């Protein structure tokens, strides 16, 4: 866009734009002067099917050898996508789509992972952010630059750092690069989006609140910010605004949230979980690698020159720092910071490490280097000191005047050690576990390294032996395993068959390996919740690409034939919503581990059902889909089957009835069940009123009403539970069939009583805090393993479900609820919901809350 056109657009959009709350995103400003209105680069949710961006991996596999495999790489990418998909405050869903041809050119935006040997030496991985040159308007009137296609470029040699492919660092790096592909830039808080040198994320703690806040600012669910607070203010130096200063809200223990200042020095940290925080500001490090915000003419806004790092309200002494209380939905304003300029920063790329003394089984000052630094607080509280070494990744390490950990630690004893500096940290009793923040004071400046040191109360786990059992399960034996240890085969977690038994010196856990392929050698690693793993003692070697001292044990999958797949139909028209049936051969399909993909962002899988060696799925083909062939791939565990260019997208057929969705005929019910009504929504569903015919699994059903856009039908009582194929004829021509899930009907309420006895009734109504037992029949017994599927409402308000259990009467279940601020009345309807469908309500009396005592 030309500057003139951009300025014209600015005049219109200035009142509609998003306030500039942060820009560790890819940001454009509408003006070159304050007030600044930010336009972000991000995915257009309205251009994505089901608000879902899909990550595809090119079928041009990287080179692998030894214990590396392409399947392992895929498992890590899939796991990375799952992490971002799980950010609950974001409306953007992130799916893993399997494989695609390198030449695929879909019209739907997406994320691609490619492997290349074109990456210049010195670059581990990089992400290409692609957007249109023209901003578009969102529904709320704000403007943004929509992503078209973002590309994660990874080294074709997966054995090189951050590999090998099974390593935790390969996973955390994939998470980081995917964060870029979603629209996030670097932060400096040790979170996933931090630069590699100061990042401290793990397989089991892959994202932090800083990452979630960053994503929510781009794609936040409606009202997401209500559960969080914010801190805002201005950063100035010598009376001038400081641009691109990093302002960090830091709890004493816990993870920070940050933002950058705007060119006018203003900042706002959003998405801060309620709690007590210190606040500090630091300059961008020399190696920030930020894509600076640009103005309307494309000119980049520069970061201000270096300045001192200070805690709010303006001190280098953490003891003098003010605590800021953050509450949900409350904005804390005017937390202004004034800083002094500095010629350079004393530290910015500090790596921490410690040593593990294998002979004495303790973190000490001798032994194997481990990064980041760990301290076993239960051991070191006895010895009195925890030892941490800090070193600048780029050379000599400046020696601080003082150093401490936040959260009740005294100053460390400091000892220069060559290019590094050793810190002997006095350990208080009951120091606890978890990451701790390191503060280095240089007299006239300081450096804060969030999560720089990790306290544990155990030593790192180790797997000493793997034994394959006759049923195919695997028993992992080792030390420092516990009930919460998670066993991974390459990038996939193995499901537990027999929970952990034993003690810290010798314990075992029995697991089922994920499905694999013949000849695969999976590296087996134990991960503990405290951030340590059975690779921790080799973390320094992994970080440097050196040979491991204790390579993980290998599980060799038994020989098996190559997996094969075929698909029907092999041709789909643009705009279609249709069922596909994929037949697999030589594959083990495990629920929850299967990825079905059609090799293009233009075909989206919206539902998958496993049935023997078949995968039934509904797919949605974009109305503007690129015509032509695409790959189909099925990935189950490490088993990867692909048919190249197997599905053909053809032009839309306007003659076909087009089913768009099927819902319960009652708007209040979310599932389809025998005896209930179903409603098909779409277009061209009937050539005239009443001409439609519908079958379920080939059985004709009663059509109560049909028109071009709506067909109501009855699901026969006694119809089999599970997936069913739904066919529709509009009176002339058949629609493409789809799959619908037929669920059990909602349960029926048999009785409601106090947990202590009969009632509630008019003489003894329920009240706030009452505990009730609700007896129901017809409950889907599988909900017992997933209580989140069940809810109970009273007067339409959700009550707390404290437990569900069987009773001595077959088929009768007891749901125990606690009333929390229930609505009062003589006949308040109580209903039990399963998967969004409710029972018929029963009424109970609920008394008014007692008036508050007069003060």
């Amino acid at each position: 866009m030309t500057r003139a056109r951009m300025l014209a657009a600015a005049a219109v959009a200035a009142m509609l734009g998003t306030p500039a709350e942060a820009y560790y995103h890819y940001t454009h400003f509408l003006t070159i002067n304050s007030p600044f209105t930010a336009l972000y680069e991000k995915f257009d949710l309205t251009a994505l099917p089901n608000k879902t961006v899909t990550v595809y991996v090119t079928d041009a596999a990287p080179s692998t050898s030894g214990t590396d495999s392409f399947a392992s790489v895929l498992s890590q990418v899939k796991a990375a996508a799952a992490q971002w998909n799980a950010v609950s405050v974001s409306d953007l869903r992130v799916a893993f789509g399997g494989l695609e041809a390198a030449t695929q050119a879909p019209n739907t935006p997406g994320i691609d992972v490619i492997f290349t040997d074109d990456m210049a030496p010195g670059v581990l991985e990089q992400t290409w952010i692609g957007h249109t040159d023209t901003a578009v308007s969102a529904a709320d009137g704000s403007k943004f630059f929509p992503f078209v296609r973002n590309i994660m470029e990874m080294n074709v040699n997966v054995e090189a750092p951050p590999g090998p492919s099974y390593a935790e660092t390969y996973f955390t790096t994939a998470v980081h690069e995917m964060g870029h592909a979603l629209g996030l830039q670097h932060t400096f808080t040790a979170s996933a989006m931090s630069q590699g040198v100061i990042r401290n994320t793990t397989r089991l703690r892959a994202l932090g609140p800083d990452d979630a806040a960053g994503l929510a600012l781009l794609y936040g669910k409606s009202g997401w910010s209500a559960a969080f607070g914010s801190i805002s203010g201005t950063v100035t130096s010598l009376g001038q605004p400081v641009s691109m200063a990093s302002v960090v809200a830091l709890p004493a223990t816990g993870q920070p949230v940050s933002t950058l200042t705007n060119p006018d020095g203003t900042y706002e940290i959003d998405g801060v979980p309620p709690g007590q925080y210190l606040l500090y500001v630091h300059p961008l490090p020399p190696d920030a690698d930020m894509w600076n915000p640009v103005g309307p003419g494309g000119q980049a806004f520069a970061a201000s020159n270096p300045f001192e790092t200070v805690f709010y309200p303006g001190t280098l002494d953490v003891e003098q720092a003010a605590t800021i209380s953050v509450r949900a939905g409350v904005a804390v304003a005017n937390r202004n910071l004034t800083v002094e300029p500095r010629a350079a920063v004393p530290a910015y790329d500090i790596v921490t490490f410690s040593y593990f003394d294998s002979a004495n089984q303790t973190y000490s000052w001798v032994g194997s280097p481990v990064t980041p630094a760990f301290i076993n607080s239960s051991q070191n509280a006895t010895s009195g000191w925890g030892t941490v070494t800090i070193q600048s990744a780029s050379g000599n390490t400046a020696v601080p005047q003082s150093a401490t950990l936040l959260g009740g630690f005294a100053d460390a004893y400091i000892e220069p050690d060559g290019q590094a500096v050793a810190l002997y940290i006095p350990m208080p009793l009951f120091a606890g576990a978890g990451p701790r923040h390191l503060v280095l004071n240089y007299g006239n400046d300081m450096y804060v390294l969030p999560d720089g040191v990790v306290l544990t109360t155990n030593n790192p786990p180790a797997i000493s032996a793997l034994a394959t059992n006759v049923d195919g399960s695997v028993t992992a034996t080792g030390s420092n395993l516990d009930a919460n240890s998670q066993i991974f085969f390459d990038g996939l977690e193995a499901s537990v068959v027999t929970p952990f038994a034993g003690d810290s010196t010798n314990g075992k856990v029995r697991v089922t390996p994920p499905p694999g392929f013949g000849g695969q050698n999976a590296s087996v690693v134990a991960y503990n919740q405290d951030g340590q793993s059975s690779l921790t003692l080799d973390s320094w070697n992994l970080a440097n690409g050196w040979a491991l001292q204790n390579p993980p044990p290998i599980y060799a999958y038994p020989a098996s034939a190559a997996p094969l797949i075929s698909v029907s139909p092999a041709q789909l028209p643009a705009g279609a919503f249709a069922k596909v049936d994929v037949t697999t051969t030589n594959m083990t399909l495990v629920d929850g581990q299967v990825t079905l993909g059609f090799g293009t962002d233009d075909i989206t899988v919206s539902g998958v059902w496993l049935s023997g060696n078949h995968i039934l799925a509904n797919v949605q083909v974009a109305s503007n889909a690129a015509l032509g062939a695409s790959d189909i791939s099925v990935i189950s565990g490490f088993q990867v089957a692909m048919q190249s260019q197997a599905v053909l997208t053809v032009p839309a057929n306007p003659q076909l009835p087009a089913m768009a969705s099927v819902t319960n005929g009652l708007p209040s019910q979310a599932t389809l069940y025998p005896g209930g009504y179903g409603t098909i929504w779409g277009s061209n569903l009937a050539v005239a009123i009443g001409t439609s015919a519908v079958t379920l699994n080939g059985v004709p059903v009663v059509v109560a009403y049909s028109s071009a856009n709506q067909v109501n039908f009855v699901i026969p009582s006694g119809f089999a539970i599970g997936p069913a194929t739904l066919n529709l004829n509009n009176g002339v021509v058949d629609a493409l069939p789809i799959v619908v899930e037929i669920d059990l009907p909602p349960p029926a309420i048999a009785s409601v009583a106090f947990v202590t006895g009969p009632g509630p009734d008019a003489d003894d109504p329920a009240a706030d805090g009452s505990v009730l037992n609700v007896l129901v029949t017809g409950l889907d017994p599988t909900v017992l393993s997933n209580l989140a599927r069940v809810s109970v409402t009273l007067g339409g308000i959700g009550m707390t479900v404290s437990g569900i259990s069987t009773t001595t009467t077959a088929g009768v279940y007891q749901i125990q609820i606690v009333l929390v601020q229930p609505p009062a009345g003589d006949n308040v309807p109580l209903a039990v919901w399963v998967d969004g469908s409710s029972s018929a309500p029963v009424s109970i009396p609920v008394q008014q809350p007692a008036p508050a005592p007069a003060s």
Partner: protein
Amino acid sequence: MITKSTAIVRAKVTNSYAAYSGRLIYTHYAIQVSERFKGGSQGAMDVAVPGGAANHQRQTVEGAPTFQPGDEYVFFLWTSRSGLTQVIGLTQGLFAIPPGTSADPVTTRRASGDLMLAHGSAAPVKNETLVMKVSELRSRIAATLAAAGSAAQ
């Protein structure tokens, strides 16, 4: 970095264009070589930098440099098997030469971002800001190449 480079040249940027290579946009800078330290060609060379704008779309890559016509650098370059010539380590292989008439100007390489691979060990390393005269850089390159040549013999 010296041994990893396929060419090390002192050159000025003359012009640029951006184009797709597969799914990726590279900005191709034409540079006019004034001195060759290792490999390269005497006249013009093409240096591809990740990112750029083409066909109404723009791609950006964090850490990728941008050049203006007239900018002068000592470029540490690497040519891939596909024939794409790039700066080593995005900005790691760039020593900026300020405008002026000095016969022996001071060059500066700024620190760069994420971990990068060290030569030989392939270990991730960071690089710090370096400042030195062109003559010193020339000497270091020559000495390193000579040592590498001796080691290879």
